[in-house]
């Protein structure tokens, strides 16, 4: 028995430092420190955080994960979240948290820094950067045919076996919502079921752009930055694909917005507001524009990365992120058709 006791004592002493460390580290931090849940491009977020810390002296603890994980986490935390700020890649998750009443209003000055149509209608989150939905295509896999200029054409029998798409990506539901808003529900369902039978399903947009690039598929709907990021990794010699923009006003021609919000449960509201203000400040937006995430800064006057079509030359359809909603309708459509 004594030996067993010794063993138990050993186990206890061995785990005590861990326990103490656990208790010490999990406090919500000092007044001069905020916790950021970030579903955004990690390297870009790190650059933004560093500049913010230097400018304000406020320390930022970053927790990076995909936005779906973080969204679910905040929902489960039920108002006990250690997070002060949530920086998401897409707006539906922010809309969802707003509907659950987990967000505090953003300062008006911050909201005004970017065009109002890219903010929450209720002022509970601010748009920070944008992507435009485009088609990636591989000219040799298309065999000389011109890529389509409307999202609706993707479902046409002409492109049978050529289209790759990622129906489980958060970027896909806004497309479906847009078609539904422009052409009606029946048209959207027909489009989806035709696309399902003629196209090839990939797990994510990274795979879509990679498979179009290597010729497995010939065209695919993506957000522009996936292609730029692929090109940055592969270099010009490894890039065998190009981008096709949709014709003006096409339901496929969408702006997807990344936004940030402050959690109501945060006890560092002032510092959190300063962080959001920094994200949309000229300095923050310039950092964003020059990082390798290839997104469009939303603040007027800040130029995007070289090589991107200027933001004011994009002619997206008139739907706002808020109008596209929380994605529940397209989700049910996809589920009914067995795409998810």
């Amino acid at each position, binding site marked *: *028995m004594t*030996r*067993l006791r010794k063993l138990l004592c050993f*186990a206890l002493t061995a785990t005590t430092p*861990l*326990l103490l*460390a*656990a*208790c010490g*580290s*999990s*406090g919500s931090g000092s007044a001069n420190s905020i*916790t950021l849940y970030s579903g955004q*491009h*990690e*390297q870009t977020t790190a650059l933004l955080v560093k500049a913010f810390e230097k400018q304000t002296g406020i320390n930022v*603890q*970053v*927790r*990076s*994960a*995909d936005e*779906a*994980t973080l969204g*679910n*986490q905040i*929902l*489960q*935390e*039920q108002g*006990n*979240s*250690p997070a002060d700020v949530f920086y998401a890649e897409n707006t539906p*998750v922010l809309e969802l948290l707003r509907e659950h009443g987990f967000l505090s209003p953003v300062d008006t000055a911050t909201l005004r820094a970017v065009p109002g149509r890219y903010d929450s209608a209720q002022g509970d989150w601010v748009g920070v950067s944008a992507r435009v939905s485009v088609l990636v295509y591989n000219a040799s896999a298309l065999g000389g045919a011109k890529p389509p200029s409307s999202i609706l054409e993707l479902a046409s029998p002409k492109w049978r076996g050529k289209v790759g798409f990622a129906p*489980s990506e*958060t970027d896909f*539901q806004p497309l479906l919502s847009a078609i539904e808003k422009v052409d009606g529900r029946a048209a959207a369902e027909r489009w989806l079921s035709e696309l399902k039978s003629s196209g*090839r*399903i*990939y*797990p994510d947009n*990274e*795979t879509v752009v990679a*498979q179009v690039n*290597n010729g*497995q598929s010939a065209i695919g709907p993506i957000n522009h930055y*996936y292609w730029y*990021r*692929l090109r*940055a*990794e*592969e*270099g010009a010699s*490894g890039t065998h694909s190009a981008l096709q923009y949709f014709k003006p006003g096409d339901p496929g021609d969408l702006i997807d917005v990344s936004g940030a919000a402050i959690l109501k449960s945060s006890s560092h509201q002032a510092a959190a507001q300063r962080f959001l203000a920094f994200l949309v400040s000229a300095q923050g937006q310039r950092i964003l524009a020059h990082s390798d*995430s290839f997104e469009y800064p939303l603040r007027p006057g800040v130029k995007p990365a070289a090589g991107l079509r200027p933001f004011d030359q994009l002619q997206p359809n008139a739907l706002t992120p808020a109008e596209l909603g929380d994605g*529940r309708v397209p*989700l049910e459509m996809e*589920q009914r058709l*067995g795409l*998810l």
Partner: protein
Amino acid sequence: MSSNAASASADSVGERLAHGWSGRRRWPLVSVAGAAVATAGVLVPVAFLIVQAQDSGWGTLRRLLLRHSTAVLLWNSVRLTVACTLLCAVLGVGAAWLVERSDVPLRRLLSVLLVLPLGIPDFVTGFGWVSIDPALHGYLAAVMIMTLSLYPLVYLPVAGAMRNLDAGLHEVARSLGDSPARAFVRVTLRQVWPAVLGGCLLVTLGLLAEYGAFEIVQYQTFTVQIFTEFKLGFDAAAACGLSLVLVLLSIAALGGELALSGRGRAFRTGPGAGRPAGRIRLGRRRWPALAALAALCGLALGVPLGSLVYWMTRGSSSTLPSTSILAAAGHTAEYGAAAAAIATVLAVPICMLSLRHRNRLTILIERVAYLPMALPGLVVALGLVAFSVRYALSLYQSALELILAYAILFLPLAVVGVRSAMAQASPALEEVGRSLGSGPAEVFRRITLPLIAPGLGAAFALVFISSSTELTATLLLRPTGVNTLATQFWTYTTNFSYGAAAPYAGLMVLISAIPAYLLSRRAIAPAGRSRS
């Protein structure tokens, strides 16, 4: 015939002793306490599941379950699980027999290599295969890729059991005229049966909950629906309701395994003496056997590792700060080792109770301990989030919580490792120890522990390796700002920075090689107490 008689008589002696004593024996308090702690840990995510599922309401669940796609996806899950489990059983047992019982060349090296596929993230394996053949997709691709990455779950416990094998029974069978093949089926296989079944159970349960690996070969299983509800619908209630279907499937698998394990027991006859079992001489057949094992390693390891090398040499994002990779490796090893130690220690009382104090309750406790394996990691991790923000806020997002999460998630692996070794150790020896006046702790230390040591090693290795590639729970529960190899790998791959990601996956494999190597050292040394 006579070999059966030999083992049967050993059984009956063991059983008679066990039964004779169990009537008078008190409940072992330490084991009961340990098993209670483990069960409580396992029940946290299960309770979360049930509470959430109740929230979703029957109407939503019916809408989700009665869709046309549900039946297709369930069928996909079941046919994949059955095929992979059978293939893993054949590969795992065959490889374990060659490495542990035959004189195949290079077995020390092979015994390390054969374990390593477990340490490669599914994503790398899938990506490696798809980059060799971009057209690869569907059922057969999923069966192949999952078999090649999961067979170590059978190999490792079976190798541990074969290492511990008593030479006596096999020799008796051979001397009485059984052919080697016949002796293998009737004696060796029978002796390692608990390990085979345990390993297959792990493969089955793991596949039911698997999701990520199938994305890349476009094979959709039932778990896809659960992830859709979580990731696109943010509907934890519906996701948990659907997860109940996985629980039902796993209960079927757990019951099936229990039925297959039967009542027959195959204890060692002379474990105290620790006589190393002689290896079977393969003669000329050594070379085809070696070629087969090399082919298995080549497919399971070579393809994913090849794609890592390709990424490293081709990607332009290869620059990385060396300090961050070392810190990530340190965290991975530290968390993995702590979780492996906790899970292994908790598995011992569960197995002690279910094997030495066998009754409905102790069997139930053991079966419940397998449940986390059949639940998607996201369900388990969100369950721990919900639990800790309510009842243990100071634990939330601490290193300790992440370690406990790993221990809960991978407890089933530890239970299989420990159980297969303990099932071979005859309780008669423990009873002799008690009758000679030793206390339970002394008997455990001097008799049980040396007998189950290889099983503990296998348990530790399985949990450690699985923890080091775990991503879902890590993203939810790690301390803010801390990175592991898996989280860093994920960060880079989601941004196309495959060149920068590759070294992290390479280190994951290297770290997994450490426990695999340590186990192989034991494998080469004669089993039993001759080492002491």
